[in-house]
């Protein structure tokens, strides 16, 4: 895999000029898959769901849950409304892949959403896009308008009797509205407070009705699976986490950007070859592999590790959104960790006590260390606080805030202690 990555033909963001235009997309086989699914008797909703389940398409929003399995949790239709909510709120620092889809291949996502809504007998799709993506919201809205004009959205698509309406909703700048139940509250026009589970969205989601929530990239994979079959999909990358991945590489590399490559790429290859190595020929120091909340890896921990769920778990971290933040030897880990805690402090919705108060306390302690007033006992207090926060809240934001603190301190303990000892010296 690593050898022939240069030969890989991208399928999520294909190298076809102007594919974002509906005519170009249609010339290249666009909307043929949904047409085929709707028109042939062979493609029952169950068969579509089973095909996606068999492909082992892992959710690309961070949690990595089998998408087809998630679809199968929807209860039998009872005549009432059911919803598909597509999550385009990508707010995790280091993650910027979905906006490429909105910009370069929006129709493949729309087609994927259509197939998903057929599979789950859904006729309303809500697409939630973060408010900061103003330009991308406009671009995507244009794609939706075009699809309506051609009759791919709206009533009685391809004369099949299947109707789907798609609504685009803009967020207003809150990370927590990317959490699936927080997003549902926001879609309902409420404050983005995550809901307690159970009930799960498939039982009681938007407006109390069965709802499935999928990531934008996840749904963009769906037409490919139905068109080429689950076996084709499973052959891309390792078995535990197959398919094409949009790697968002940022940080101290020469060529940062979103790269579509098979799952399971070696970290080393991604940094040194795909992103053209560390800026200024510096040494590689650390990597956050899947967005700010995933545990950081030291350079030595990245040896032989590939970007797929199993390999990363063995290395002591998570796949997340594959938003890789690369750091060179000059990086100050105290500064990095303070910046991450600042983010989670700012973004905690404030509903649950441990997260509301804990995120603030974490940041204030790191601020103290960063300003040179830290003591070694503060490090132990920080670690203590992470255990007091983890697993004690309604949603996973407290976990997301606690993991980086615990792992960055544990994996760069010397650097943190050094900073604190300077204080002790200065105080003496």
């Amino acid at each position, binding site marked *: 895999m690593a050898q022939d990555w240069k030969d890989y033909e991208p399928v999520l963001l294909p190298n076809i000029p102007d594919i974002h235009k509906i005519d170009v997309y249609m010339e290249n086989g666009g909307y043929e898959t949904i047409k085929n699914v709707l028109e042939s008797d062979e493609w029952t909703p169950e068969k579509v769901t089973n095909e996606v389940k068999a492909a082992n398409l892992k959710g690309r929003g961070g949690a990595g849950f089998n998408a087809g399995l998630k679809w199968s949790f929807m209860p039998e239709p009872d005549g009432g409304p059911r919803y598909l909510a597509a999550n385009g709120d990508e707010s995790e620092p280091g993650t910027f892949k979905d906006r490429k889809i909105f910009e370069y291949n929006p129709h493949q996502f729309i087609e994927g959403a259509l197939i998903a809504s057929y599979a789950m007998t859904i006729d309303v799709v809500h697409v939630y896009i973060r408010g900061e993506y103003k330009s991308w919201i406009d671009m995507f809205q244009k794609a939706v308008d075009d699809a309506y004009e051609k009759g791919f959205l709206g009533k009685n698509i391809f004369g099949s009797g299947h109707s789907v309406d798609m609504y685009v909703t803009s967020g207003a700048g809150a990370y927590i509205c990317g959490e699936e139940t927080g997003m549902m509250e926001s879609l309902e026009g409420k404050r983005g407070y995550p809901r307690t589970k159970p009930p799960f969205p498939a039982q009681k989601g938007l407006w109390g009705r069965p709802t499935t929530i999928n990531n934008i990239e996840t749904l963009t994979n769906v037409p490919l699976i139905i068109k080429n079959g689950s076996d084709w999909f499973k052959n891309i990358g390792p078995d535990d986490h197959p398919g094409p991945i949009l790697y968002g590489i940022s940080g101290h590399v020469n060529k940062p950007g979103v790269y579509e490559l098979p799952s399971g790429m070696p970290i080393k290859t991604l940094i040194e070859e795909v992103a053209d190595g560390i800026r200024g020929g510096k040494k590689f120091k650390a990597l956050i592999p899947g967005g700010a909340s995933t545990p950081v890896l030291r350079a030595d921990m990245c040896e032989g590790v590939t970007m797929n769920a199993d390999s990363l778990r063995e290395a002591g971290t998570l796949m997340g959104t594959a938003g890789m933040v690369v750091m060179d030897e000059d990086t100050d880990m105290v500064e990095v960790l303070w910046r991450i805690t600042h983010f989670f402090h700012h973004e905690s919705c404030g*509903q649950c*006590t441990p997260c509301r108060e804990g995120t603030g306390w974490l940041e204030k302690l790191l601020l103290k260390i960063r300003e040179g007033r830290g003591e070694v006992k503060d490090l132990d207090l920080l670690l203590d606080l992470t255990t007091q926060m983890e*697993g004690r809240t309604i949603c996973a934001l407290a976990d997301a805030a606690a993991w980086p603190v615990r792992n960055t301190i544990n994996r760069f303990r010397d650097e943190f202690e050094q900073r604190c000892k300077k204080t002790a010296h200065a105080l003496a």
Partner: protein
Amino acid sequence: MSEIFIDGKRYEFEGKPKLLQFMLDHGLEVPFFCYHPSMSIPANCRQCMVKLGQYQKDRETGEYELDDDGERQIRWFPKMMTSCSTTMSDGMVVQTQETSEEAARAQKDTLEFILINHPLDCPICDQAGECPLQIQTYKYGPEGSRFEVQKVHKPKRVQLGPRVTLDAERCINCTRCVRFADEISKSHQLTIVSRGDKNYPATSPDETFDDPYSLNTVDICPVGALTSTDFRFKARVWEMNQTPSIDITNGKGCSVDFWTRDNLILRITPRHNPEINDYWMPDAGRDAYKLFNENRVSRPDLKLDGDNQTKTSWNNAIQTFAEVLEAHKPEEVLVIGSPHASVEENYILQKFFNVFGVSDTNFVPHIVPDAGDGFLLTDDQAPNTNGCRLLKLQEQSDAVLQQALSSGDYKVVVLLNDDLIGRDVLNSDAFDAPFVISLATNNTATTKASDLVIPITCIAEHAASYVNIDGRIQRSYPAKETKYTNRRLNLEMSEGRLDRFGTNFDNWVTEDNKVDCLPAWEFFSRLADRMGIELEFENSRDILIEINETVPAFKDVTYERIDEEYGVQLPLNQEEVKQA
């Protein structure tokens, strides 16, 4: 029947109760803040965490799986669970802070978090003494604080509305107030603004929290964040004594508590009564405390000439009353009871004049159309309209009463505590001709126009019963002393810390707040004695016993029964109640 094991003890249950409520119902204690039995469960304070497990059952046989030692196998949940939001299931195993170190630790951790940004101002905080955060910190909290950095600062002394003041720094964001405005009063006037540790409750810009039930948020606030603008800084909780009573400002008759210090009622709060008002009461009812303290009739008033009244002695008042009655025939006496007075007061009035020879005792309901809201406010502005009806007092309209007075047939009017002139039933000149005797608690336009005013005890000074709009009879307890009662001799009166440990020489003790008045039954007993009429009641308890023996609607109703239950439902048959 399902079973659950809490701290090693087996309990049976049916249905799908929530774990926290089940434990509270069974006298088990778990600390909590955001949970309220009458509102939705947000599980946001994360305080009521317990260790939760499930005995494993064989899927096919439904029997518990046993390990090699014959013990049941427990599968523990990986995380601590909030008991408030946990739905109980058969074979569930629960360890609270009593038996699980982990649960105790989790609760302590959450309390530590709650306290880091909470100001340490208990010594000047109104909530101190009745503060769930204070109490639970004593019981379950950490010994000290590890928080050595700057606390978050938020708005203080925010006037959320005309009656509620917010100190956002004390707020622990339990959202009880927001949920109250959304789910109970449905005014939707409150929300949480801002994010994370900066958030606090607020109204929309330019909106004011003028919900007619706004002060309930002060009661349910688990800290001192929301305080009553009127009551704040007036008294420490432990200095007051708490006496159960009834809201007398409308027909619903919410169950309330009177809070007294040195014979002044300082505040009124709702008392839980699932049959009437649940945990709530309207703001208007809380304002009634002023009626009990201010503008009271103290010592009888006698009109000598013109409009001038002068204070007179009880002996002279009784003598005058007796002489006026003796000088007139019973047909010349108009007796008016009152929906604002208790069952016992109306009964003694009716009975006294029956013996004297007056057949009918009248009353005029106090209705303000559209004042009700279908919740706890009613069109009926009086607490005992149905009590008058059940005692078979004659229900009169404004016009009929006005006409009766202007007919000139009546030379004497005896009126029980009802401001008929003030509430526009009668014109101010209606009392010009007859000799008017008012038995009243407060000075009003009506007492001013009366020839003789007899001061009687108000609901805060006597034990008496009232029948609400739905026919439920409840009763009051004496909460403040009169000139002639003594808290230490009256076993029904509650004693606060000051009453119990203070002496008459303490500087907070004054005699000024004691009103010179008598219960109506005591006054009529004395009057009967003077006039040689057979009528002797020592207290209201005996009156109700006589009522339950003689008036069918009150059959078997006693103070004991009212106290044991949430009041007693009387048969409120429209046929029976409506007077022909």
